[in-house]
Every structure is written in C-alpha cells, then in structure tokens.
C-alpha cells in the first residue's frame, strides 16, 4: 500500500506509466480469434492488472488504483492500490485500513451517520459507515460522492437482519478476506440500491442508522446512497470499457490492460464493431446452450471464474478435491449464444480446462477456469467472469445514460 499527496506531477507520471502499459498490452496478442486489445491512452484511462492480488491469495482478480480526497481538498488525499474492479456491483468501498491518515465526513440521514450492509451472492458481506469523498480515477473526478468504509472494528455491530445466515458468511473486512483493498463497483446500476431504499417500509436490509447503538433500516434518499462513481463524472460518464489481452490456455502470471471511462465519448472508447446486448430489469440477459435458454445470465468482472451451468449437465466434470470447480480430463470447447433484450444475438466461444492443473500452475490469470452456477437446469445460468474479459473489449453501459448508437437499453447494456 502506498499513500501520497495528490499532485499534478505524480498524476502525469502515472499516466505516462499507463500509456506505456497500454502499448505493452497491445502486444499481448489476440489468441482465440478474439478482439485484440487496442492501444489506448488518455485522461480517461486507468491501468488494470489481473493477478493474484495484494495477499497473493486470489485467482483472476482485476485491480486498479483509486485516489480519494476529502471533499474539495487536493492535499488531504490517499491513493489506494489493488482495488477490485467489479462490474457486478455499483459503488466504491474501501478498507478503512487503507486510509489510515484520511478523515472523511460522514453522510447523515435524519441526523445520524449512515451505515451500510452489503451481502454478496456467496453470503459474504461488507459492513461499515458511508462517508463523503472526491473520487479520482485516472484524470476523471466524481466530487463529494458517498463511498463505504469497511472497518475491521466497526463502531456498531452488523445488524442481524442483513445476514442471511446469521453467522457463517465471511466478513470481508480485511485485505486477507477481501483479496483487495476495496471494491470499485462500475456495473449497470447508477446506485447500489435506488428507489427501493428510499422508504424503510420496503424492508431492504442495506442502509441503516444506529441512534443509541440500535441499528435500524433507514429511509435513504438516492443522493445519499453509494453511486457508481463513473455516473457522476463530468464527462465520460455513460459507462466503462474494460480491455484485457488474451492469455494462453495454460494461463499467465499477470495480464495488464485498461479501464477506460465513457462509451463513444472519445476516440479511445468507440463501440466500433462491438454489439450491444441490453439487459433486463434484473440486469441479466439470456444465454442459450444446447437449445436451453438460461435467462439469468450476466457478465461480472468481480467473478473470478466462468460459472457455467452445473457438472451433471456438462457430463460430470467436477474436480474431486475442490467443490464447485471443473476438472475435465482434457480441455473442452463450448459455444453458447447470448441474446439481449434489444434482440441482439451472438455466439460466444470458450474453453474449460482442468482446474487442478490451472491452480497448480502458479499462474493467476486464466481464460478457461470454470465451475458450477447451480444444481440443475432450473437454477443454472452463466456468470461470465474474468475468463470472458481476457482477450476482449467489454463495454458496460450504465442504466439511464446515453447509448452511443441509440439502441434501446433502459436498464443498461453490455457491448463486446
């Protein structure tokens, strides 16, 4: 972890390094016949790397660096490296341990500091206060936005109505547990909750206030909720492009690429030949395999493997030693068809290799590591994690923002 004062000089150096990395990334090749990584540089480009993370305990983690400052300040700032780039959520959440010398003002609702609990699909969770900060990503700024601080020793105990399991779900309150110093949520949602959390009567266990130490669900205006910070940039605010080089089927130690802000707003983020796949009200699209449609499918850079149907449906390819990971005897090739709500349909090809072999290779960036998403056709779907991103340009369109070619995508979209 490094901390520094904000300065134009250091930003310039950072951008020069980014530009250099972009050139390197562009030489990474375009195996699998996928879209090559473009050469990009500019004030809307942040460097990303796929590797094993700050604790060397992760596979296919995608990280960038985020600078946060006290609102309006150019000196009371901290740069946090190794923040997970997550297209499956919205909002910036940082370990308070990564901001030891930075004091940020709280966001208050009805006079009480706002707290948030977020539970993830694997039943892990994040709990901590909501604070206000200026968020700097590459040359872009979101001013005075709510972010969440993740504390190892929170002021208030996590409310039990937030925890589906009561106990058992992992508390992601350390760099070891999180595998990152924070999560940068840049998904389809403009805020992490939206209108549902405006009224406590909806009983959504996300935003809380704790007067007298008793945490209760709080009616929370949209403006006080965690936004996708990209949506609040002055420009380049309609989405992001994640561009990663391809890797061999045996994996790579790291893969360096770029997180580019805006879609069709500058010469380095044009849609080009990418097709738009609009998502439904649940931010999902349909993936069809073997004639069976799986309507809850999505793309998620925060998922570090390809979650594809279930082992029994694919011919019993489970690993014997790691539950939920696939270990086919030889690498298998698949073709599926994705269909957006705007009617766009297109094929995606991918491979699934032996997970045991990949894990033991010592590499950390894989395009063919997969596991199960469900237990049968009724619960199965496809979660296109980091393996999908490697060797592609993937655009994430934010709901309600301008769509470059006028496609109908009221809930946001993917383009690739």
């Amino acid at each position, binding site marked *: 972890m490094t901390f520094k004062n904000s300065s134009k000089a250091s930003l310039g150096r950072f951008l020069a390094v980014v530009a250099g990395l972009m050139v390197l990334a562009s030489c990474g090749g375009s195996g699998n016949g996928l879209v090559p990584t473009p050469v990009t540089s500019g004030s809307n480009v942040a460097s990303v790397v796929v590797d094993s993370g700050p604790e060397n*305990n*992760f596979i296919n983690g995608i990280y960038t660096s985020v600078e946060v400052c006290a609102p309006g300040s150019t000196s009371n700032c901290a740069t946090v490296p190794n923040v997970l780039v*997550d297209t*499956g*959520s919205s909002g910036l959440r940082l370990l308070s341990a990564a901001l030891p010398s930075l004091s940020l003002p709280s966001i208050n609702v009805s006079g009480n500091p706002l707290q948030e609990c977020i*539970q*993830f*699909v*694997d*039943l*892990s969770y994040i709990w901590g206060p909501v604070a206000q900060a200026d968020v700097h990503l590459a040359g872009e700024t979101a001013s005075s936005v709510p972010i969440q601080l993740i504390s190892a020793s929170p002021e208030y105990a996590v409310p039990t*109505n937030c925890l*589906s*399991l*009561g*106990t*058992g*779900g*992992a508390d*992601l309150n350390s760099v070891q*547990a*999180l*595998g990152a110093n924070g999560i940068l*949520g840049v*998904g389809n*949602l403009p805020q*992490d*909750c*939206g209108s*549902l959390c405006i009224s406590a*009567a*909806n*009983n*959504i*266990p*996300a935003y809380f206030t704790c007067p007298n130490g008793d945490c209760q669900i709080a009616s929370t205006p949209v403006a006080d909720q965690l936004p996708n910070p990209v949506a609040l940039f002055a420009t380049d605010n309609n989405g992001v492009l994640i561009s990663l080089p391809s890797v061999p089927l045996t994996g790579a130690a790291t893969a360096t690429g770029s997180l580019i802000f805006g879609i069709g707003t500058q010469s380095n983020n044009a849609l080009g030949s990418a097709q738009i796949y609009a998502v439904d009200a*649940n*931010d999902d699209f349909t993936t069809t395999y073997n004639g069976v449609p799986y309507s*809850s499918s*999505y793309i*998620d850079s*925060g*998922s*570090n*493997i390809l*979650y594809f149907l*279930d082992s029994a449906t694919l011919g019993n390819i489970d690993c014997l030693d790691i*539950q*939920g990971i696939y270990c086919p005897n030889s690498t298998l090739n698949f073709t599926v068809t994705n269909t957006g709500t705007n009617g766009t349909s297109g094929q995606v090809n991918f491979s699934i290799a032996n997970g045991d072999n990949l894990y033991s290779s010592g590499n950390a960036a894989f395009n063919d590591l997969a*596991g*199960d*998403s*469900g*237990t*049968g*056709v*009724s*619960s199965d779907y496809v*979660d296109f*994690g980091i393996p999908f991103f490697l060797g592609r340009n993937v655009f994430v369109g934010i709901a309600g923002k301008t769509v470059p070619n006028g496609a109908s995508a009221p809930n946001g979209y993917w383009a690739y």
Partner: protein
Amino acid sequence: MKTMLGVLLILTLGAVPARAVLGEYESSVSLDQEYLRGEIRVTAAQGYKFHQIIAPSGAIVREYVSPEGKVFGIAWQSPFIPNLQQLLGSYSTQVQQAAQSRTRRRGGPFVVRTSDFVFASGGHMRSFHGSAYVPSLLPKNVSAEVVR
C-alpha cells in the same frame, strides 16, 4: 373465553417450530409469511403444491409442499438475499459450514451439495435468486427441477 383463545393460540404456535420451514410441516410457511410481511398464494400442481409469498421489498419466495404436508423445496428471487436461517431452518447449518470452509473468495454463485441437501445461491447486486431442496422429501414422480 378470551383466556381460552389465548391458550389455544399458544398451543397452536407451540406446535410449529420457531423457524420455518424446509423439511418442516406446511404450517410453518405462515412464519415465513410473517417474517417477509408478504401476501401469500397457494397453487396446486401435479403431485405437489406451492405457496408463493410476495413481500413489499419485491422478494418472491416459493415453498414447495409434498402430499404428506412437508416442505421439500424453497426458491427465491429477491433484490437482496432473504433470511436463509428462517427459510432453511435446521438445514441452514449445512450452508454455514460450507461457507466457513471456503478459504478463497470467488465472487460468484454458491452451491452446496451434501448427502441429503442441495442448495444454490445465484445472482448479483439487486437481483439474487436461489433454491434449496431435500432429495429424500421429494414426492414420488416429482423432479427437483420444479423448485425454482
């Protein structure tokens, strides 16, 4: 009379478990309805029936009941993950154990299979879904695929 009703009420409540509902009797469904503050609708199907609860949050929970009156499956679709301790009852400990034994964060769906319990948690922020069932409680000629 009031006292008698009170006694009856206590007896009735005492007859059902404190928590619903997977693997318990159909009467426990009402506890989930209470917890979800939802409206309930019962639908009959070939060889089973299911209760559907729709909560103000938009959460939809379906509870599948065998002809013997036992809840053999649960499914949900919700903007947040519902209280699985409530819905899974004693089976939630198996999910807890599986979650605790996971050493490496994967950032994706969570599937648990034990000898007589199958569980899947899927989805992402603001759109979660999942299901759980007990294979040994499945009614004759009813596939686990109905639990969805």
